[in-house]
């Protein structure tokens, strides 16, 4: 077993990982060929054809870009809010004691649960979607920032004090970098839930506005579901959502050692 360490070359492992999905795809395709022509059931080749159509003329990439743009803006807002508030809460007992009950009572409320209010306040366009994404991404950032800040080695703060470093500088130069590994972890989680939330929000907003309004990949899926019942297109959207989620995760894995090079 090599103690669980796989020493075989990369391509060989990749081939092993791809074997089962390939078998399933082929089985699925063979089964689909037995269906009567004109059946709406999705099949690999039909999905592929739908994907090509959607990408070339169907505006799939535009919709993805729109969703991704919303996620990035909402994520950025959550990052700023979560880090600022997290550092304050983490470094001041008084702030923490005051804000903790509010944070903890909102945190269990799922992003989708605030959708009705978001739509009432912000309508069915981008502002609503941004509100949902920001709300969803905010808590992982906040909670992990607070955790990271409270766990910064106290000796380091003391050392900075003996070097005549001001309180504000200590927050920026010691507390923030000390909490950074935790903040990065929180950001990765936040980005994951933000992407999940935007799809759901666009689907729901799309439903509310009767297929118009919001735009984005979620709304596109809703249109295929409600108006053309195009299962192949829906599967294409699902795959794209998954691919983007995977890419986001990979991006963070790539970024992590670069953001926190002192961690191994």
């Amino acid at each position, binding site marked *: 077993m090599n103690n669980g360490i796989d020493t075989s070359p990369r391509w060989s492992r990749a081939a092993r990982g791809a074997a089962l999905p390939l078998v399933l795809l082929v089985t699925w395709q063979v089964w689909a060929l037995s269906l009567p022509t004109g059946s709406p059931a999705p099949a690999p080749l039909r999905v592929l054809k739908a994907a090509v159509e959607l990408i070339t003329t169907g505006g799939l990439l535009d919709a993805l870009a729109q969703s991704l743009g919303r996620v990035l803006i909402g994520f950025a807002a959550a990052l700023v809010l979560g880090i600022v508030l997290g550092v304050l809460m983490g470094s001041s007992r008084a702030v923490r004691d005051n804000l903790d009950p509010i944070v903890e009572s909102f945190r269990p409320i799922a992003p989708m649960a605030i959708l009705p209010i978001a739509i009432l306040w912000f309508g069915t366009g981008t502002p609503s979607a941004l509100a949902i994404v920001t709300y969803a991404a905010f808590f992982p950032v906040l909670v992990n920032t607070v955790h990271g800040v409270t766990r910064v*080695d106290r*000796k*380091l703060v*003391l*050392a*900075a*004090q*003996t*070097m*005549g*470093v*001001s309180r504000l*500088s200590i927050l920026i*130069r*010691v507390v923030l*970098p*000390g909490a*950074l590994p935790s903040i990065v972890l929180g950001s990765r989680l936040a980005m994951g839930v933000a992407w999940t939330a935007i799809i759901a929000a666009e689907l729901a907003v799309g439903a509310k506005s009767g297929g118009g309004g919001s735009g984005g990949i979620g709304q596109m899926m809703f249109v295929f579901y409600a108006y053309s019942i195009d299962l192949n297109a829906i599967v294409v959207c699902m795959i794209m959502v998954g691919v983007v989620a995977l890419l986001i995760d990979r991006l963070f894995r790539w970024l992590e050692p670069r953001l*926190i*090079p*002192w961690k*191994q």
Partner: protein
Amino acid sequence: MTDPTAQPKLRLHNVTKTFTAPRTGQQTLAVADINLDIQAGEFICIVGPSGCGKSTVLNMIAGLDRPSSGSIEKDGTPITGPGADRGVMFQDYALMPWQTAQDNVGFGLRHGTPGQPFTPAEREARINHFVDLVGLKGAEKKYPHQLSGGMRQRVALARLLANGPDILLMDEPLGALDAQTRLILQIELLRIWGETAARTQRKTAIFITHDIDEAVFLADRVVVMSSHPGRVRAVLDIDLPRPRSESIRTHPRFGQLAEEIWELIRDEAYRAISGSTDTAPTPPETATRTATTS
């Protein structure tokens, strides 16, 4: 020695520190009635068994802890908090893990008050100077976790010196080093402290160690503490000539002084080992003075 009427650099007057346990509220007397005058330019070593409150005394001088009663004055002014005039070298170095060796050396200069008198270019030159001085060249771009214990200690020492403090407070700074490196750094430390310079040019140094030989080698005076609670048991003048070199260790007076200090802490050291306060085994007379207290 020094003019006894001159104002001491540091004056500890009846310093007592009690710690209160956070939950139980139980009080522990850490140090009691410490009285000590330290003159400018003196090198003081504090030795004593573990738990004698050596670090507590150092922290109070650093301003990181307040005495429960009594006072600590620097140049006649009470110490109210930490400041860059009193540099600390912590036992576990307290290096910023996210900064390279060089950035750690420059931390105070770049972000704290010690950098104020310098232009940015002068700061960088000063950082390089101290990186060189402690022998960190070639390792300056490494992170602390990539450095050995000895190298980390050099970083901490360079950082302490780069900040140019008036008083050097060092908590077992050479404790984690192998014997050879330790001997080399002791001589380095004396050189940097200003052993060859006039007394007025020297910094004031307070150095905690549990190594008696190290204390005798470095100090002008050795403060011997006893534990439970920490008290000053004796203060010994180390009347060995300066500058000191390796050969001083074979000086008969060196052995006498080390023996004297060992006599003072031997009983407590044995008690600490046996873990009992009343049935301490009689220490064998052959116990060597090179034994340490913790």
